[in-house]
């Protein structure tokens, strides 16, 4: 018996060890499978031999041969004989570089992350579904499949992706599948629609309705109107004020009696960033060296690896277009062809509202609307959870939309009120077809084509900028905007009152627009869409004017501009907010001794005993600053912290959660600046929590000391360590937040308020400049690379050029057999 014990024990330990190493343990990957040189990540390496300069790939389902050239950035230039093959090849080649990313993002959108990582993503998944992202995607897909063009595009693209997935054996799966231990699933057109909805969430999923309702109920309508105005003091709207209307506006619905929403005290945790910071601008030929228009666009998003965008050239019947695509979605989103160029920035219009509901009883099967009880529709979501049984979740729908949280519970996203129905343009699909809009833009030859293309583009609303070789420049804040009465949806709405429902839409022919303005340029930077002369209410909370105004200032001086002139403007790091506020801040900052005697806080009193030297040096440094947020700028670090802390001290006692116990928000920067600069007696300056009556100089002194102290604690005495790039600390992370797979502390300039709006995690995700001379020349860069494979040098080969503000000239071919010094490979795809 004992003779058996030793071998059995040894074998048992071998088997247990092998099982442990072969199985995913919680978040620890299956180590042996991951590290095996036969199956694991070592197989994901990339050598020159993996990318032959000549080859023929045999792919099922192609109708005719497709030719693909690759340039030295690995951009595929696809030449197909028919639309099916063109989008098939786009799907195939995109999947070849980005399969994991595109599939993972659709899981993020659909609320299917728990299937991969287990229970810890369950609340996230529930939230995505309760916000109705998959609901909106299914609505969109239905519309897109009704249209012959988009059905062909989506089905061909999906077939191409599936052709690639079908070729893969497990050892060839992209790295992240091995790390997270799962397998790719077949692609479907629904996934393309899900990506659109994810974009809609990122760009239009934010709402301050709850916060504004709380403010209204605490401070009343007068204060709310004063501190949260619909139009800023300093404005430079996308469509310049005074642009004549070329339509007869529809009547605007009457304003119903005010509704006092129930106060709610939730704390926000996860919601899209308030300001990402995109720019686009175009110059008419009168201002350019070539006499033809120039167009530039830099959409800003959270910076991730693999890169958000994927470059491609698509050449097929009736089109030859180049630009960036979203991996997982067909067609070019931002780009150009020989005749036109276009780009987008986000519109901050209010397209997401909350309706407070009255349920009949605790069963929540009926709700009160229009004087009677109406049935609630119940939708059961089945959420697959790795290693656990499926979870079922019932979501209630009223005619407004989904009830994101229907009873008191731990809410995942606490901007979201409980027992409120969500009304959001991302759920509406009738007549909307975003993919069709992009396909038409890809084919566009002139302004009329651009005009027609945008009619089916609904969500997320974008400032579509346009320029053509024939000399037109135009811009449109474009999308589906509900036809609202003034301030409808600025606060929580009454879900029982039909007069507060969205009555319809602003006609697509009546969205704000401008074509060939006399000033010779058009631009946008997420600011207000139009001036007060525009007949419809679109929203009140847009990005501050700084970037837009700086762009327009610079454009208005341009003569004989070239593509490089616009590249320089994209990299402009002048802070208009600092230019406006710093002189006032320095002039009103008490002298050191005065600060200590007048200061209300212990910190300021302590200043009396400490040497004044650092404060004097800091003051001198700020006075000499040129307001540029270069990477080395120490003054930028100091000003930003000083200003941010000043805002905190000004508003926290009145609108902070801790001081008031209520979920509210601070007034916009524009309103705050106005108060500081021209309302020195404003009662808001006083900190209600302290007996003395504070004034602006008191706040300035306290926040100045705070900034100096905290920077000294963080970096040591004032010196080069205080460089703006160190303080801002721009990180570009892997989508799954894997250490070692991103780049941290990228040394670059820019700030959220300057044209180069690069922040800690956000920044220009693609920079493009197009010169519409003949032949068209274009330039572009993104912070990453074409490949999604972290083993490839093409994973992040463009990052350095991006960091230093350079652009690549984009290789725009006319024919598949064209000679170009930067072409490196020629492939043939055939049946």
């Amino acid at each position: 018996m004992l003779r058996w014990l030793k071998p059995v024990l040894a074998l048992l330990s071998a088997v247990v060890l092998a099982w442990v190493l072969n199985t995913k343990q919680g978040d620890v990957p299956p180590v042996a499978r991951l590290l095996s040189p036969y199956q694991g990540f070592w197989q994901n390496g990339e050598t020159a031999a993996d990318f032959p300069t000549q080859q023929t790939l045999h792919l099922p389902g192609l109708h005719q041969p497709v030719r693909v050239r690759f340039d030295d950035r690995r951009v595929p230039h696809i030449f197909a004989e028919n639309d099916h093959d063109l989008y098939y090849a786009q799907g195939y080649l995109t999947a070849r570089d980005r399969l994991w990313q595109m599939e993972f993002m659709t899981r993020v959108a659909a609320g299917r992350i728990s299937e991969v990582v287990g229970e810890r993503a369950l609340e996230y998944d529930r939230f995505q579904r309760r916000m109705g992202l998959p609901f909106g995607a299914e609505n969109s897909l239905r519309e897109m499949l009704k249209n012959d063009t988009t059905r062909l595009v989506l089905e061909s693209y999906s077939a191409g992706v599936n052709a690639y997935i079908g070729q893969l054996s497990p050892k060839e799966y992209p790295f992240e599948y091995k790390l997270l231990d799962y397998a790719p699933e077949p692609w479907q057109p629904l996934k393309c629609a899900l990506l659109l909805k994810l974009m809609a969430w990122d760009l239009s999923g934010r709402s301050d309705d709850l916060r504004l309702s709380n403010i209204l109920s605490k401070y009343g309508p007068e204060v709310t109107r004063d501190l949260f105005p619909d139009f800023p003091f300093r404005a430079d709207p996308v469509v310049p004020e005074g642009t004549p209307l070329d339509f007869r506006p529809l009547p605007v619905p009457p304003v119903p009696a005010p509704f006092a929403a129930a106060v709610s005290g939730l704390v926000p945790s996860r919601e899209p960033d308030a300001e990402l910071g995109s720019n686009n601008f175009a110059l008419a030929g009168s201002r350019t060296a070539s006499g033809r228009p120039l167009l530039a666009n830099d959409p800003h998003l959270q910076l991730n690896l693999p890169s958000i965008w994927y470059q491609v050239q698509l050449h097929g019947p009736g089109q030859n277009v180049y630009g960036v695509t979203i991996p997982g979605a067909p067609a070019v989103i931002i780009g150009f062809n020989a005749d036109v160029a276009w780009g987008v920035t986000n519109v901050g219009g209010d397209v997401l509202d909350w309706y407070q509901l009255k349920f009949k009883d605790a069963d929540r099967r009926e709700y009160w609307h229009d004087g009677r009880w109406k049935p609630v529709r119940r939708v059961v979501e089945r959420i697959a959870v790795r290693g656990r049984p499926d979870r079922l979740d019932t979501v209630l729908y009223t005619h407004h939309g989904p009830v994101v949280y229907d009873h008191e519970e731990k809410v995942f996203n606490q901007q979201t009120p409980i027992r409120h129905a969500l009304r959001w343009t991302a759920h509406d699909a009738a007549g909307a077809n975003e993919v069709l809009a992009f396909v038409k833009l890809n084919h566009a030859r002139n302004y009329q084509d651009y005009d027609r293309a945008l009619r089916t583009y609904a969500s997320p609303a974008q400032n579509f900028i346009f320029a053509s070789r024939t000399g037109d420049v135009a811009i449109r804040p474009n999308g589906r905007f509900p036809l609202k009465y003034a301030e409808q949806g600025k606060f929580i709405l009454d879900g029982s009152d039909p007069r507060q429902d969205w009555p319809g839409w602003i006609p697509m022919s009546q969205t704000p627009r401008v074509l060939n303005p006399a000033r010779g340029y058009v631009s946008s930077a997420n600011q207000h869409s139009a001036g007060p002369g525009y007949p419809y209410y679109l929203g009140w909370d847009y990005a501050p004017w700084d970037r837009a105004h700086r762009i327009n200032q610079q454009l208005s001086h341009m003569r004989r501009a070239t593509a490089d002139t616009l590249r320089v403007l994209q990299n402009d790091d002048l802070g208009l907010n600092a230019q406006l506020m710093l002189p006032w801040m320095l002039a009103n900052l008490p002298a050191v001794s005065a600060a200590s005697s007048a200061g209300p806080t212990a910190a300021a009193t302590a200043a009396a005993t400490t040497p004044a030297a650092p404060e004097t040096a800091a003051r001198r440094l700020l006075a000499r600053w040129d307001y540029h947020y270069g990477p080395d700028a120490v003054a930028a670090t100091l000003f930003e912290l000083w200003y941010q802390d000043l805002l905190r001290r000004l508003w926290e006692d009145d609108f902070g959660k801790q001081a008031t116990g209520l979920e509210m928000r601070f007034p916009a920067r524009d309103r705050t600046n106005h108060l500081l600069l021209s309302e020195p007696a404003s009662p808001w300056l006083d900190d209600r929590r302290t007996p003395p009556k504070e004034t602006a100089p008191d706040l300035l002194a306290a926040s100045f000391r705070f900034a100096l102290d905290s920077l000294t604690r963080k970096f040591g005495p004032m010196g080069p360590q205080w460089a703006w790039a160190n303080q801002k600390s721009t990180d570009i992370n892997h989508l799954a937040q894997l250490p070692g797979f991103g780049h941290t502390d990228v040394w670059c300039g820019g700030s959220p308020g300057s044209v180069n709006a690069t922040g800690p995690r956000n920044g220009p995700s693609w920079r493009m400049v197009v010169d519409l001379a003949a032949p068209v020349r274009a330039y572009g860069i993104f912070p990453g690379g074409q490949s999604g494979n972290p083993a490839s040098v093409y994973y992040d080969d463009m990052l350095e050029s991006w960091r230093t503000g350079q652009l690549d000239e984009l290789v725009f071919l006319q024919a598949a057999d064209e000679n170009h010094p930067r072409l490196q490979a020629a492939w043939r795809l055939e049946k």
Partner: protein
Amino acid sequence: MKPFLFLFLLIFVLASLTQLLLPWWVVLPLCLGLAAWRGTSAGAAFWAGLLGVGLSWWLPAAWLNLHGAGLLAGRVATLLPLGGNSGLLVLLSGLLAGLAGGLAALSGAWLKGR
């Protein structure tokens, strides 16, 4: 040839070949069977299994580390975390598989010698 050297080489060659087609844990029955068949001392069997299986990973991993997978190996070595040292990752990879192989071979030797 010494029994250890023979067993070690046999394990190395057969483990390398079988893993081309089969999952990595095929080294368990392989080491068990070969050690039981050849019958060496327990210590020799363990080391033959560890080094034979280990080498079947060290060699291809080291080669791939120099040919295309080095960049990724450095990243994985940061993730694990091994300070970004891909050489250390090569060593660790083979050691893990080798340990399983060595234990299986030890069991085989004890079976034979029982």
